[in-house]
C-alpha cells in the first residue's frame, strides 16, 4: 500500500525519468542529424570547390589522328590529380585511350610521340556501373545513370573513371603548382566528346563538371 506522499514522489520520479529519457533521445537524435548534416556540408563544399577549381580548355582536335588535346589546370595550385570519364556518344572510353604529356621526359620537343616516357597513360580508378557514380542535381544527389538518362547522355553498363596525373608531380615546381597538364584523348569515330570531371569523396565518385566538345 502506498501512502499519498509516496505516490507523489513516484510520480515526480516518473516525470523526471521520462523527461530525461526524452531529452537523451532527442540529444542523440540531434547529434546524429548534426553529424549527417556536417558530412553533407563537407560533401557540398568539396563538390562546389572542385566544380570551380578545375579548369578545362581545348587546345586542338587533330582530325587526321582523331585526337583531342585538352588542357587541365587547377586554380588552387594544388598537386591533386584530375579524374575524368569520357563519353564518346556510344560508350565511355577506357583509360588507355587517355594519356598525358610529361615534358620532363620529352627529348625531342614533339609532344607525346614516345609512349611510356613523354606520354603516360591515365590509370583507372573506377570501372563499373553508372549507378555507383553520383551527381549533385536539382538540390540532391542522384545516381549518374538517372542523370545521364535525363540529360540524354550515353547509357552504358560500364563507366571508366581515369586518373590524369597532375603534371606538377613531374616538374620541379616548388610552392603552388602553376603548370597546366596537357592530355591527349584518342577518340573513335564520333561527332561529340563529353568530358566528365569527377571528384572522389569518401571513396565515392561524384561528377562535378561536364565539358562537351562538338567535333567536326
Amino acid at each position: 500500500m502506498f501512502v499519498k506522499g509516496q505516490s507523489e514522489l513516484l510520480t515526480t520520479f516518473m516525470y523526471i525519468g521520462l523527461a530525461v529519457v526524452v531529452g537523451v533521445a532527442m540529444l542523440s537524435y540531434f547529434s546524429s542529424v548534426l553529424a549527417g548534416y556536417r558530412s553533407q556540408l563537407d560533401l557540398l563544399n568539396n563538390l562546389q570547390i572542385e566544380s570551380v577549381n578545375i579548369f578545362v580548355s581545348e587546345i586542338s582536335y587533330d582530325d587526321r589522328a582523331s585526337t583531342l588535346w585538352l588542357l587541365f589546370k587547377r586554380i588552387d595550385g594544388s598537386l591533386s590529380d584530375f579524374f575524368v570519364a569520357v563519353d564518346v556518344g556510344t560508350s565511355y572510353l577506357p583509360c588507355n585511350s587517355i594519356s598525358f604529356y610529361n615534358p620532363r621526359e620529352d627529348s625531342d620537343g614533339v609532344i607525346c610521340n614516345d609512349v611510356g616516357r613523354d606520354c603516360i597513360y591515365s590509370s583507372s580508378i573506377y570501372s563499373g556501373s553508372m549507378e555507383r557514380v553520383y551527381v549533385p542535381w536539382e538540390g540532391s544527389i542522384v545516381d549518374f545513370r538517372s542523370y545521364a538518362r535525363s540529360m540524354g547522355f550515353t547509357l552504358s553498363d560500364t563507366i571508366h573513371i581515369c586518373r590524369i596525373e597532375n603534371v606538377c608531380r613531374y616538374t620541379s615546381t616548388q610552392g603552388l603548382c602553376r603548370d597546366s597538364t596537357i592530355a591527349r584523348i584518342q577518340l573513335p569515330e564520333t561527332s561529340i566528346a563529353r568530358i566528365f570531371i569527377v571528384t572522389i569523396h569518401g571513396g565515392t565518385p561524384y561528377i562535378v563538371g561536364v565539358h562537351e566538345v562538338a567535333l567536326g
Partner: protein
Amino acid sequence: MKGQGNIIIAILFFSILILSVIPLTVHIYYALLNNQQLYENPTTRRVSIAMKEMSRDIRAFLNTSSSELYLTNIGGTDIEIEKAILHISCENTNHYIDTHIQTTIKSGQTVLISIPIPSLCQNQRTVALHLITVEGSVISSTVLTPEDLQKIQSQLFNTTIPIGISSAIQLIPMKLAPNDEIWNISIFRKSFNISTLDNRDNPTRISQFTDLGKGMSGGTTTKHIWSLQNVYTNTEIRINNLNIRNLWIGYDPRNTSRYNILITADSITSNVLSIGGRGVTTNTYTRIKIYGFTPSTSQEILRLREKSITRPSQDIADYTFNNSALVLSGRADRIEIYVRSTGSESSYNPYIMLMNTDKSSGSAGILFTSIDRTGGSYNTRNEDVDSLLDYSTQALVLVYRDYVVSNYDSSAVVIAVNYRFHDNEGSDATGISVDRPIMLVGLVDENGAIYSYRSYTFRELTRYEDTSPPTAQAQSSLVFIPLPPRETGEKKFYVFIAIQDPYHYNGNLDDLDFTLYIESLSILPIS
C-alpha cells in the same frame, strides 16, 4: 504546498521537453528548407571545335628559314605565356611541338623568339600556334610563313594591278641556329629539298635524292672513297707541324668567334696530331674537318708555312697546294677524321662545309671541294695519285621550297649567284676532252620538270681562276628567266641550284678536281 510541488515538477518536465524538442524542430525545419538549395548542378560547358574562335589577340609569323617566331600582342592586355605549342602538319600526320617558350608579351609588343623546329617530314608546314597562358586559357593563332604571305599576295594580284617586288629573297647564305648540326648535309632540309638531276650533262628533270649516303665516288680501276674513321666532340686539339696538302678555313656561321676548317694531308704520322690528349695517326690520305674551332690564343688562328693566319681569307683558294707544316692548338665542337679507303660510293659530307668568310653571324655559304692533294696538267695525273680522283655519281641539287615563283605574281625572275671557283687542272681548258656543267641554276616546276636553267661549265669557270698560284676570284652571275604568260594559266616554279664534280678521268684528261664556294644565291622576282 503540495500543489506547488506538482506545478514545479510539471514546469521542470515541460522545460526539459521544450529545450530538447524546439531547437531540434527548428534545426530540422531549416535543414529541410536549405536542403532545397544544398547541391548545385554540375558545371557544364559546350564548345565546338569547328567553331572554336581563333584569337584576335595574337598575331604569329614564323620565318621558316631562320626558325624565328614573331609574336605580336594586338590585344589590350598583357599576355603571360606558360607554354606555347606549335602545330606542325605533315602529309598524313599532325605533330605538336613543345617550344618551351615562357614569356610575357605586353600589349602592343612584338617579341622575336628563336625556336628549334625539329625536322619531322619533308614538306612540313607550321599551321597553328596554341599559347597557354598562366591562367590556363588557350589562345590559338594561325602561323603565317613567308609562303603564306606569298599566297595572299598572289590572291591579291588576281583582283588588283600587279605590284613590282623590289626586294630580293636570299636562299644562300643559309640561316642557321646555334645548335644546328652543320656537319650533315641533311641540314639543307631546313630550307631546301635535297634532290638530284636525271642527267648530269643535259638535265630535264629533278628527282628526290633517295640515299644521302651516296653521291660521290673516286679512284680509277679500284674505287676509293672518303670513309669516316673517327668523330670527336667538344674536345681539345693540337696539331704540331703536320705536313698538310690543303686547307680551307671560314667562320663558323653558328658562332663567328669560332672557325670551321677543312684539312687534307697525305697521312698523319705519330706525334703531330693529338685530340683530347691522345695521339691520332693515319697511314693513308686523310681529310680532317674541324667545326667550331676556338684557338688557344687570340693572337692567331693557326700557323701555316710558319706564317700566322689571323682571319679567314675571302679567297678560299689561298691555302690550297701547301705541302707545308701546320701548327694549330685550341678546342673544337666537333672533329671528323676521314681516310681514303676502297669503296664504291660515299655521301657528300666529306666534301662540303658550311662556313662564311665575312663573319656574318647565322649565315652560311656552301664550300664544296674535291681537291685532296695537288694539281696536274693535260699530260700528268691530277692529284698525282689515282685513288684521290673524285667525281659525282649523282648531282647534289638544292630546291628552295620557301618561295614559289608564280607567273601570276611575276613576269620574269632573276636569279643572282655569287661564287668562287678554283680547280687543280693546270692546263685549264686544254686539260679536258669535253666541257661539262659543274654548277646549274634554274627553275623547276611542281612536278620536277626543269623549266629553264643556266649551266656553269668547266671552261667558263676555269677562265676566271688560276690553278697556281691558287686564286679563286669572286664571280657574280645574273640569270634572267621569263615566265609563261598569265593567260596560259597559273604555273608555279621553285628555284634550284645544282653542284657536281662531273669529271672522273680519261687518261690524263678530265681528271680534275675543284673547289666551289657559293657565297650567295638570291631570287629577284620581276612583276
